């Protein structure tokens, strides 16, 4: 059974600092998705990682995928308050089926 675990679950950091959110999963998959959710809002797609070694960057966020280690990271560079949100990773359970298993989410709070 595929299990997806994120850590940390809660992260409070100061503006200008760097940090990384980790997403570990338990069975083989080479498709991983990152989403952002603002309070009271729905999920917004951030990145789709489709192969081992994939790296994608958008602004201060960079995501990477290591399928051999079953690990994805979401790195935040020089954090700003607007990045405060809950971040979810999701792993495709069966290739091509888009059946996703989500992590618990990481609630990120960035303080001025």
């Amino acid at each position, binding site marked *: 059974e595929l299990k997806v675990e994120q850590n940390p679950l809660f992260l409070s950091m100061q503006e200008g600092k760097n940090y990384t959110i980790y997403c570990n999963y338990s069975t083989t998959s080479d498709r991983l998705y990152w989403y952002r959710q603002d309070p009271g809002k*729905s*999920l917004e797609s951030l990145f789709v990682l489709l192969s081992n070694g994939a790296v994608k960057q958008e602004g201060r966020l960079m995501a990477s995928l290591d399928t051999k280690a079953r690990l994805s990271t979401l790195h935040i560079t020089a954090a700003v308050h607007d990045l405060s949100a809950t971040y979810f990773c999701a792993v495709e359970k069966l290739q091509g089926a*888009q059946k996703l298993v989500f992590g618990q989410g990481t609630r990120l709070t960035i303080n001025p």
Partner: protein
Amino acid sequence: DVKVTQSSRYLVKRTGEKVFLECVQDMDHENMFWYRQDPGLGLRLIYFSYDVKMKEKGDIPEGYSVSREKKERFSLILESASTNQTSMYLCASSPPVATDTQYFGPGTRLTVL
């Protein structure tokens, strides 16, 4: 822009009532999904559909059913609502290209009293 809409943002129902949650997407997507979101558990897949009149169980289908009579509309049905079905329900859609992401609706917060 892909738009996924859900019939209600907030819904309050009583135990034993039949509840319909509706989801409509306007991008002609083949795939549609229903999730529930609970604190500390992330999102869990209830049901999904690859095409009209097709449905498959997700990870937590017990107590739910679905209907997809038209391509753009996917309904989640709680035949007899129970208090443990109090949750946020999110609908999503995606094109058949497996490399694309899922697009989510705004969610329905359902409270069962």
